């Protein structure tokens, strides 16, 4: 039982990072129809920036913010110079993102080599409650994710901007006719999604050492979660992230850890087969005129 709770907590902290990715993926897809496979590399860049900052003596919270800002800026630049031109043909956007994966991975390798990178744990306290060892750093990751995802959710469902955003997802042209600057919203959502990936990266390196190739597995799990929840469906992504975290935690607890990576893919394949729009229903992307 103790081991079980322990693994559950571990599973949930990793699932937090994956959920942050999935939320970004789902938002970007919902509005633009672009499947940005390089989203995992955005996370990896976030980790690298945090790592660089911490190695240069900057405190972790500040380093995390730097990571978020750097990736948000990168998202802005890439949207302006590349993804903006693929809006009419989302398949091209997907292929371009494959190219970006290769470019970002190898630029990082070029400057900072391909070795594992880690930072000292920002929080070292470990609480022991009834035989369960709770690492405060994992709790921090989970709490931060809950806070950020809740903020995003409120912004999208409650605020004026959120309503305009949802209107643009529903019908880009009509929204534009109503005076919503749809193009600017697209850029905005891309930057928001990138910032979330940057945050996920910073939190991930607080938990585990990373390599320039970490983005690949993380993005696949992020996509798995986004697809299981239904692409474009924010609360679906959160629920699916929770499910995956519990499943991975349980399986590690019962000694099937070498198959951990297979669950997200297997689950995703099953869900897509029987409910192609995800467990909680998603959009099929923006409606093209």
């Amino acid at each position: 039982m103790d081991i079980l709770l322990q693994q559950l907590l571990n599973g949930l902290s990793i699932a937090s990072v994956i959920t942050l990715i999935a939320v970004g993926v789902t938002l970007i897809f919902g509005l633009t129809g672009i499947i940005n496979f390089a989203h995992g590399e955005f996370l990896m860049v976030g980790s690298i920036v945090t790592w660089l900052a911490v190695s240069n003596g900057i405190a972790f919270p500040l380093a995390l913010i730097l990571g978020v800002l750097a990736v948000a800026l990168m998202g802005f630049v890439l949207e302006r110079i590349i993804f903006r031109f693929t809006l009419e043909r989302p398949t091209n956007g997907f292929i371009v993102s494959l190219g970006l994966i290769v470019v970002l991975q190898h630029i990082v390798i070029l400057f900072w080599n391909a070795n594992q990178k880690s930072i000292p744990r920002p929080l070292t306290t470990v609480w022991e409650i009834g035989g369960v060892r709770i690492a405060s750093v994992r709790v921090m990751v989970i709490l931060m994710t809950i806070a950020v995802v809740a903020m995003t959710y409120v912004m999208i469902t409650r605020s004026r901007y959120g309503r305009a955003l949802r209107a643009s997802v529903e019908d880009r042209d009509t929204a534009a006719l109503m005076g919503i600057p749809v193009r600017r919203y697209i850029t905005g959502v891309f930057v928001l999604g990138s910032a979330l990936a940057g945050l996920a990266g910073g939190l991930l390196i607080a938990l585990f050492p990373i390599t320039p190739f970490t983005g690949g597995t993380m993005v696949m799990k992020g996509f798995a979660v986004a697809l299981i929840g239904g692409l474009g469906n924010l609360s679906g992504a959160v629920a699916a992230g929770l499910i995956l975290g519990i499943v991975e935690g349980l399986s590690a607890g019962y000694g099937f850890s070498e198959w951990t990576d297979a669950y997200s893919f297997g689950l995703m394949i099953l869900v897509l087969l029987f409910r192609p729009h995800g467990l909680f229903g998603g959009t099929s992307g923006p409606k093209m005129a």
Partner: protein
Amino acid sequence: MIKSVSSLRSLAPVLIVLLLLALVPLFSPSNRFLSLAISAGINIIALYGLSVLFGQTGILSMGHTALVGVGAYTAALLARDFDIGFWVSIPVAGIMAAIVAAIIGIPSLRVSGHHFVIMTFAFGQLMTIILTNGGDYTGGASGLDMGKPVTMFGADLDALPRFYLLVVAFVTISAVASWAIINSSYGRTLRAIRENEKLAAALGINVGRHKIGAFIVSGVFAGVSGVLLAYFLRHISPGQFASFPSIYLALMVMIGGARLLLGPLAGGILVSFLPEVLNLDPVQSRILYGVCLIAVILFLPNGLIAGIADGWTWLAKMSKRTPAAGNVPEAGR
């Protein structure tokens, strides 16, 4: 099936290029050159499969290297457990890869568009996990060794120049096979699906079945290329066949142009030899590949060769004062 002159004209340049490439060993090239050329050739065989799938049918698969892996593991296991050699492995691996393609394709093609790409990606990753966790049978993470040489009429084909000629022969077969598919009524059906799926369905084409068919056909090419890979590398491991290497295959086919018969050949050769020509290390060359891919998609969506051909027709038309850039005739694609 009447072969028109124009369809033969699209095959001729490919055959001429391959004939010239077959003469290369006469100039006693270095071993390094031959190894590069052999791995390029093995990729090109898989690329011809991908070009049928992506170029003709318009479906992109990220599980193509996984199918290459099926071929390679089939060859390695046949050689280890049954002492079966190269020539029997080729058809068996082709069939195995086709079966796996069907297993992946039938469920994956029920979902459309983007979802399909992600499904194939997930299947590719799953396969790597299964091969890694396969224990002694698949050799685990360290993979399998290939102990048998390639022989033909009792002669050993393992020396690099001979193996090179073998690969050129297989590239020729796949180019001709791909050409035959493109110019058959089956190829026209696939193109109809690519251009307008709903219209094709309305005309009575069974879209789902033909898509799966195209996926299976592409799997056969991948399986054959896998056998050659196993016999060339002599050692295979699961990591080589994960989904990410598929990106490089997609990249080669895009850079060359998926719809032209010359495309896979050009893409495979360019991507393999560009770093050598420009004297780049692997990291730099991969950055260059990525940038090339992005540039090609943004500026030349039909690939380099089609871009050059388009530019040529455009120039020709300009000189005749006809407005608007032209397209390369569809028959050549």
